[in-house]
């Protein structure tokens, strides 16, 4: 029953106004609180930005994966802000020490990636263990976040949730499963409400790939390999999805725009033709 409810909630959110996604999500949670955890972790909302006071107010991105209660963990200092109480902080999730090192490496790597591809914006990477044991080179998950604000109203949010698990077929092969969501919101807000235009939506795709990693190497090298594999995979997916947005959605929008324009012109032409016909008929009748 819960699965059906969950799927129904997702379907509903998929069809509701994307600009009010957060509001609709909260409403659904009120209807079915037991789905709150799943919905919060499954529905991607525009990323929020916070500053790490312990790291020169460096900005980091916030999503449900680095949240605990109302605080969000900073990838730079590995601390929750606003700071949690001592009791809550003890129960708060943190990556294991070796995985935290990988997280730092990933943050640095994807920061370079962000600079290369986005030429601005913010990036954050968060890892967490899938097993209770300490990270030993496999079975971990994470999320890679990118956000760029062209203006206050136009945003590009890229959310890559990945899961790295050992492939059952071979010990040296890992399965990378990446679920990517791109939330694009373009808003041209003019104070003249008549000329307001907005284009918003999100696109989600899931990709799986099996890549071999030499597990005989030390953990550091294995971790580096994981980061490199993830980087290439995410790079590939992002370019693919961007092409998809450009070639499909924007072209579709253009098509609609042109059709609208042409239809308006056609209607006016029809009216003029009707008038002309009426005049001709009148002329004939007068004869």
């Amino acid at each position: 029953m819960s699965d059906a409810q969950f799927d129904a909630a997702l379907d509903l959110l998929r069809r509701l106004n994307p600009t009010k996604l957060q509001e609709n999500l909260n409403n659904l949670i009120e209807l079915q609180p037991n789905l709150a955890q799943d919905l919060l972790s499954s529905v991607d909302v525009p990323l929020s930005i916070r500053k790490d006071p312990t790291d020169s107010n460096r900005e980091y991105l916030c999503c449900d994966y680095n949240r605990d209660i109302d605080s969000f963990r900073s990838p730079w200092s590995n601390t929750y802000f606003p700071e949690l109480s001592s009791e809550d902080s003890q129960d708060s999730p943190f990556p294991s020490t070796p995985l935290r090192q990988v997280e730092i490496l990933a943050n640095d790597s994807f920061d370079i990636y962000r600079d290369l591809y986005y030429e601005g914006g913010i990036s954050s990477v968060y890892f967490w263990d899938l097993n209770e044991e300490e990270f030993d080179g496999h079975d971990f998950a994470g999320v890679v976040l990118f956000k760029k604000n062209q203006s206050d109203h136009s945003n590009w949010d890229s959310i890559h949730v990945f899961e790295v698990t050992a492939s059952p077929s071979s010990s040296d092969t890992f399965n990378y499963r990446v679920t990517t969501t791109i939330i694009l919101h373009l808003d041209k807000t003019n104070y003249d409400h008549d000329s307001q235009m907005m284009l918003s939506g999100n696109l989600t795709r899931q990709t799986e790939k099996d890549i071999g990693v030499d597990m005989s190497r030390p953990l550091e090298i294995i971790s580096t390999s994981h980061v490199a594999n993830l980087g290439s995979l995410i790079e590939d997916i992002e370019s693919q999805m961007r092409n998809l947005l450009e070639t499909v959605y924007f072209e579709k929008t253009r098509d609609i725009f042109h059709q609208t324009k042409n239809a308006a012109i056609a209607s006016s032409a029809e009216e003029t033709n009707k008038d002309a016909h009426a005049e001709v008929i009148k002329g004939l009748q007068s004869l």
Partner: protein
Amino acid sequence: MSSESIPKIPERPSRTKTVELSPSPGTEAGNAKASSEPSTLVEKPTVPRQRPMLKAKTMTSFESGAASVGLPQVPLQRPIRRSTTEELNNVMDNTSKELEEIENLISKHSARSTCKKKISTASRDGEVISISHNEQGTPLSMKESFTPHPLLPETNRHTEDEDNDETSLSSSLVNLSNDEISKASGSGVCPGKEGVNAVLDHKVEDKGILENDTTPEGIIQPVDVNKNVEDDKSCAQAWTENADSGVKAAKITKLAESSFEELQKHQEEQEKKIFQNPTEEESTTSLNDKAGIENSAEENPQPAISSTSIVAVPANGIKIPSKSKSEQGNNIPMVPQSRPRRNLEASVKKEGSPNVENKPILEEQDPIEVDAEEKHKSPVLPVERPKKHAPPPVPKKPSSRIAAFQEMLQKRQQQDLHNNGTSPATTNSENMMKKATESSTAANTTKADFTNKLNGLFALPGLISPGQLPASLGKKLSLPDADSPGEKEEQSQTKNVSLSTTRRARGPRGRKLPSKVAGVEKIEEDSNSNEIEIFNNWNVYSFPSKEVALEHITSNKQPTILSNEHSEDALSEEVRDIRKGQLKQPSNETSDAVSTIALEEKRENTANAESVPLSPTVGNSETVSEKSLSLSEAIANRDQDDLTEIEEQRMENEMEAELGRQLSGSYEDVDSAVNSAEAPYSPR
């Protein structure tokens, strides 16, 4: 003055100097010998015309170039080459300072040599030319001063034969240079040269025949030999003979060719080394040569010689480039005849100037290095040409950075995963690059077929799930990685999975919901079935009158006591009667009270007798009413029935206690108490 100018000279390429030194000892004396070789060289002139195709690559080209001295067209072709060597020139820019210094020196000496003045005044380009000339010319001038002195070991090494050859070659080169220079100086700036060089004219005339017969060999050794006497001569001849020609464009080409000439010279020097062992040794040690030159200058007893040497420096400098120009012209006759426009000439000159600057660098370097550079340069020239014709694809700015980033990742992965053979990341990155190019082209093509795509993408609801793509588009948008064979080996598979089937990773465990969500309470869902809930809105209490109750009791007393077996049947009948009575009579009539009393008595006889509702209401209120009736009955029985008098006292006590409870509201307790009080009757 001469000593000051000398120290700078040593920096120049040792080979040129060595070559210069070698001819110097026998220059004047060996002129006649030199004339003998030119004859041999004269036979070759036919070859040079063909060689231009081969150009600088071979030494023969230089030789042939000497024979074809008269070809002024060559320079036109050269500018193209110069432009190709722009990069090299840029690299050589660092040496401009040294060139400037040399220019200054030359300018000082220019007063003595009219040729220099002319060139320097010609233009900015002319200055560059003069610089190049000066560089080469200075060693020549030194040679002149040194040649007369046999003390120098280097000069002693030169054999007479060699000297003759060199002189002949030099003379030929001088002629060539003169021709070219005259062309270059076609502006006619130097009318006074003739007067200045009048003294040298006779020498020039003597060599004139030989010069016409110049052979490539003379070009090879060039600078050195020519410098001795011909420096002044060349200027004079150039101005006299070619003053009319005044080809300005020739200057440009010559300038541009100067660098190329140097390369050729170095090659020539190498050849000379092969033939002349002693000279090679000297050339290899350029510094030693320079020092020897200086020593010789110091040793010169005649100060006038030194002064002449200084004067000759510019002259030589002028000659040298001219020679080189002639050589180049010979080497490259095949180059297009269409000269660059005059507007373009300036640019060509600019291009040529850096080339000229390149010379000093080469000269300054050790001979071995210079040779190596020459070898490298000669092949480089053809390579650069195609670049001009078809420039390489210009990488985009971000892509280059991205490519560098990808390369970095590739290296890492290759290092990390070399055991696995080909790393997946490398193939991915390579594919990414391919994909980037393909995607751009695909984007253009897809626009045309956009409507076709829409059939699959924007289907009606229900046809295709949002997570799935049509097969046609899926292929286009699918990762190219899957196509690469390397990845197939690696068993790396990329596939898009619809969200409906698989869900993404769950977040870290132990998280707590946000406070806003955590406080939300579940709204209970009510079932759609309708349920009737009964409330006790009213109760009916009927108290029978005492008379009726007593009659009823007396009439029914015996059967109730005697027959316990039929007690329940009787009870049911009594209840029916009571109900009938209630329906017929108001609740306050005594008949009902009697029936209820009788009922109560029977209940006493039956221990487990159930309470019978007296009213349509259901619940405790009914029992309470019955119990209240039982109390009244007990009271009535006490008054009228003697049998119960025995137990009256005990009953009263008990009933009073029960009444007390009854007042507190616990009717059930009262009922139980009543039952317990009436229990003693049952054994009866």
